[in-house]
Structure formats: structure tokens, C-alpha cells
């Protein structure tokens, strides 16, 4: 169930005061969407749930750091979850393969296809935020780069591998794409 900004803001404010009931309500209203965000990055349900659990632990401890001037409450919650998921993703990719991992990697590759396509997700967000006109000048390559980075958590190096492009080009595409996004998002904020 999606919740409006006012409801989430009020709940976060109560959580900052240590209100356990508000914390449970905040979880019920936001956890499904936040789990989707973590799943998009991590691709494995148990890891995604782990990221959301850690994120809610931080939200319970740091709800008083949220301010309405920091933007929409779901954007703040999503940022906490994304940072947690990115940390898990980076630690997974650093870990050497162990016995039995081959099977896991194979299943991961199969399940990766079940996730929504990152470019589709970006296009849907662009429509939902009414940025279509503002972003029409952004080339497809820049969009793909942004989408893979945001929804899949790929680093500069991984993006260069995936897109078969020099890392310098990837950095330029991302920078230009982000500049466009900043202008458009700030204009509608």
C-alpha cells in the first residue's frame, strides 16, 4: 500500500521520538516498496531482505536526522535502503568464489532476468515525474548508463564492461546524464 508524503513524514517524526507503533506502521507502509528497491540492486530475495532489515535498524536509530527540507520522505527512506544494498553488493563482489558458489552464480544469472529492465524503470520514473519533455535531449546511451547504475548498482568499471565502452566515456555519459537530471528534477521540485 502506497502512503502519501504527509503520512510518512508524520510517522518518521514519531519514530524519532521512539514511538514503536509508528515504527511498525512506517514498516507496513513502506517495506514492500523498499524491498523492491533492494531487490532491484541485489537480485536475491534473502540479501534484499537483509538490506531492508539493516536499513530499518538505521531508520529506527536515525529518524531524527530526517527533515522535511531534505525532500520527500520516501526518497529519504529509499536512500537509506540503497546505501545498505550497495554496501552488500560491493562486499559480495569482493568476496572470492567458494565451494558451491558456482550453483549460486548460475541461479543468480537465471533470476536476474526476473527483475524489471533498468531502462524500463527509468522511463517509468521519467513519466511519473513528468520529466519526459525536459529529458528528451538525453541520448539513449546516457539513459542506459544512468539506469544500470541506479537500478543495478554497477560501478564505473562494470558499466564500461557491460556497455563495451571506455571508462572515460562512461564517466562523461553519467556526468552529462546527471546534469540533465539535476536540472529537470530541481525544476519540478
Amino acid at each position, binding site marked *: 500500500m502506497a502512503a502519501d508524503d504527509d503520512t510518512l513524514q508524520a510517522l518518521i517524526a514519531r519514530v524519532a*521520538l521512539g514511538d514503536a507503533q509508528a515504527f511498525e506502521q512506517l514498516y507496513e507502509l513502506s517495506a514492500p516498496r523498499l*524491498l523492491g528497491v533492494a531487490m532491484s540492486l541485489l537480485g536475491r530475495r534473502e540479501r534484499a531482505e537483509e538490506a531492508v532489515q539493516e536499513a530499518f535498524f538505521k531508520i529506527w536509530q536515525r529518524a531524527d536526522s530526517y527533515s522535511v527540507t531534505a525532500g520527500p520522505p520516501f526518497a529519504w527512506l529509499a536512500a537509506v535502503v*540503497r546505501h545498505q544494498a550497495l554496501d552488500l553488493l560491493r562486499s559480495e563482489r569482493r568476496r572470492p568464489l567458494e565451494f558451491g558458489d558456482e550453483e549460486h552464480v548460475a541461479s543468480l544469472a537465471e533470476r536476474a532476468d526476473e527483475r*524489471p529492465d533498468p531502462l524500463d524503470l527509468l522511463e517509468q*520514473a521519467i513519466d*511519473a515525474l513528468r520529466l519526459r519533455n525536459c529529458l528528451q535531449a538525453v541520448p539513449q546511451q546516457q539513459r542506459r548508463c544512468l539506469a544500470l547504475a*541506479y537500478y543495478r548498482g554497477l560501478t564505473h568499471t562494470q558499466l564500461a564492461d557491460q556497455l563495451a565502452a571506455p571508462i572515460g566515456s562512461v564517466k562523461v555519459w553519467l556526468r552529462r546524464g546527471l546534469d540533465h537530471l539535476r536540472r529537470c528534477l530541481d525544476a519540478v521540485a
Partner: protein
Amino acid sequence: MNYAKPELLDALAAAYVLGTLSPLARRRFEHLCRTLPAAGDAVREWERRLGRLAESVPPLTPSAQMWQVIERRTIGARSPRTETDDEDLSRELGAWLRPLLAFACGLLFAVGVVRMYPESFVEPVPVSALGLPPSYLGILAPADGEPVLLASAARREQRLGLKLLQPLNIPQGQVAVLWALSGDAPPRPLGLVPAQGTGEITLSAPADRQLASVSQLGVSFESELPAPGARPQPFVLSGRCVKFW
């Protein structure tokens, strides 16, 4: 790198929030955020922007275990306490509280509380007093006199409790106003102080947001509760505002 350049911080913050930094660069930038406020500000700006993109991701139904784990580590963790927790807490609080309690006891004796209240009231500080919640405390006195007013607020609460240790002689037609003073900022009126007994001021936000930077409290006599930004009359009472944790 020259982190004084806003455009560099902005680019690093964008890459950090987007998630494209390598693990090492990510850790380095997180360290920078802890030491350079401008870096943290740049991150929050990009989180505000890019967080909107997460709204298009389809939701998933969490397993029942997910909430159970979260609940156990958050709400469940604050009650009930184990013996080990209590021992750790007593050790930690004892190191902080012994000097403070000694000071508070001396102060109470100094203001004659012992003579003013029945003997039964003045007992050794009970062990449960060590469980006082983290609070902001102020003890206000005239420039050349004994303490008159105690003010306290639990750090996450919006209630500021007041206790008059002796009656306050408020001139006819005036009110006593409590002010918060922080650094070079103008004094900020918090609310009205009663002439005697106890009272309470409802803060506009939890004490952690209202009092964290406040170093002094003051009381002045005014014709009415001043609006924010007004200048106070001379303070008749003042004292330091301290964090009690």
C-alpha cells in the same frame, strides 16, 4: 584532491548516491562526509533528487520473518534489560554521573532544601536514579543569589519541565519568560515560567532540536510572551544549559 571545490564535491556526491564509486572510493567518501559538512550536504541534495527514481520500482511482499528480525533488534532491544546490560549501564553511567550527582547534592544542600522539606525526603539518591533518561538541564539563579529555577527536558521529548526552588517575584502586570541562548544567535523565547511550584513548556520540536546548541538559559520579565526575534529585557535569572548523558 581539493575538496574545497564545490563542483568536485558535487560530482563525488552524485557518484556516491548513484552508486558508481568503487568500494574503496565509497569508503573514502563516507569518511570525508563525516569530517566535511559540505560533503554531507551535497550527498543529501543528491539523495533528495535521485530518491524519486526509486518510486517506479514495483513493490514486493516481505516475508513475515523480516519484521520479526527488525522488531527484535529495535523495539524489542529496549526492553526488558538483561543483568549484563544493567551492569554495563551502571558502570558507564557511574563514571559520568558520580561527579554530577555530587555537584547536584552539594547544590541542593546549598539552597537549603534540607531545611525546607521533611527529613524523609532527603534520602540517599536511589539506584533507580541512575536510569534517568538523557536530558537537557538548566539551573538558573540571579547574578548574586541562590538557584531559583530548575529546567529539564528529556532529549527526545517536547516537554520542558520547570521547578521553582523558591518563589519568583514577578512584577504586577508582567510575565516571566524563559529564553534560550546559543552562541552569537539572538535569544529565543521558549515560554512562560510560573511564579512558584512547577510548570511545563511545550517546545516546538523535540529538545534535541531545540536545545542541542543552547549554552545558557535566562529568565526576564516582559509585558507579554515575546514573538521570536524580539529582544529580551535584562535577565533576572540565568544559568548554563547542560546535556545530562
